[in-house]
């Protein structure tokens, strides 16, 4: 409705800002001269009167924009991204280097631990062997001592026994003499008594 009615008038608004006029209002001052610089019925985007100007200004502005982009903005953003990329790569390298160091430290720690363990074992073994040897030696010495003492004791016992036995012979002879004297009243020679004692002792 209002679309087509106002169309012809609108094409002459040279240098005029868009006016928020009310619907259906007639613009008399612009309506009087519809034949302006443009053709009246030309759809504005196809109006060729401004093509040259548009092209020139597009070339200027876009050319400038292209130059700005390629000389300033793109190297700058590219640099930012590259710096970040490098930084990340560097940090990753650093991290893997530190991880390697940590792994090496762990490996050396475990190595040392194993060495210490082995050393501990050997010390314990040595100590045990030494203790065992000493115990054996002590025991042997004690046994030898005991054996010596036993031998001495046995010797003494044998001495005492033989001595006692010898005494027993004498006593028996005296007793037998006394007994015989008392019983028979006669005298018996010492040699006969001794032979009789010896014969009974021999039984």
């Amino acid at each position, binding site marked *: 409705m209002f679309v087509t009615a106002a169309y012809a008038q609108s094409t002459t608004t040279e240098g005029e800002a868009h006016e928020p006029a009310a619907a259906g209002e007639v613009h008399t001052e612009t309506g009087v001269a519809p034949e302006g610089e443009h053709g009246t019925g030309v759809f504005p985007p196809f109006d060729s009167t401004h093509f040259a100007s*548009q092209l020139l200004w597009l070339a200027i502005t876009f050319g400038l924009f292209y130059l700005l982009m390629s000389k300033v903005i793109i190297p700058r953003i590219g640099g930012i991204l590259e710096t970040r990329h490098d930084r990340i790569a560097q940090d990753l390298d650093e991290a893997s280097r530190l991880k390697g160091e940590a792994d090496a430290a762990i490996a050396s720690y475990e190595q040392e631990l194993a060495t210490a363990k082995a050393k501990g074992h050997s010390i314990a073994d040595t100590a045990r062997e030494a203790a065992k040897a000493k115990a054996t030696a002590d025991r042997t010495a004690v046994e030898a001592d005991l054996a010596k003492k036993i031998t001495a004791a046995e010797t003494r016992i044998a001495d005492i026994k033989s001595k006692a036995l010898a005494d027993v012979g004498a006593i028996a002879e005296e007793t037998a003499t006394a007994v015989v004297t008392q019983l028979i009243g006669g005298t018996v020679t010492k040699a006969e008594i001794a032979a009789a004692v010896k014969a009974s002792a021999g039984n």
Partner: protein
Amino acid sequence: MSNDPTHQFLVNKIVPIEIGGIDFSFTNASLFMVATVGVAAGFLYLTTSQRGLIPTRMQSVSEMSYEFIASMLREGAGSHGMKFFPMVFSLFMFILTANLLGMFPYFFTVTSQIIVTFALAVFVIGTVILYGFYKHGLGFLKLFVPHGVPGVLLPLVVAIEIISFLSRPISLSVRLFANMLAGHITLKVFAGFVTSLSALGALGIGGAILPLIMTVAITGLEFLVCFLQAYVFAVLTCMYLNDAVHPGSH
């Protein structure tokens, strides 16, 4: 006249300049081209001025757009295509900023002018042709001769390939231009319904709610289209550049 949906596409002279009888006036279109360049370059320049190892939010927006275009170009045209990175990046940022600036009320949409989008498309295709011939000589023409086509069909296929190649600047420019134009006209029409309906009284104000909702919804859609069209332009640029870098690879 304020309801004329094409009024917003009018080019108005701000500083009349005439060189050799040709009108090179500084117009509102020129003003918004300058604004586009200023906003886009200013944003990228200021957000990256810290060069932070850990980016701020705004710096990461700049870095994301950089990496977005870089990966797009690498996927589209391979690592040899990376020499065109400044070009694709500039095109994407310029078109995106121009589209987004056009979303402000009363702002002029640079990319809604067919001559602007056509010039950008010709710039892309011109680069493809010049670089293709410079790098591969006549071998660039292998682009029009696909592999594995039977000899009988070859003339037909080559003709189709040439036509499709020639239609590229047209499709590339019309796609962007038509999307921006249609979106802005639709927005304007629906917004116009709101004002004209609400002028009709209480019933009209009630009835104006629907177009108002539509206007809000379409505004959201238009922001999507702004980004999408800049993306599509950049993706197609990458694909066409791939032809220049590797002709006969498809």
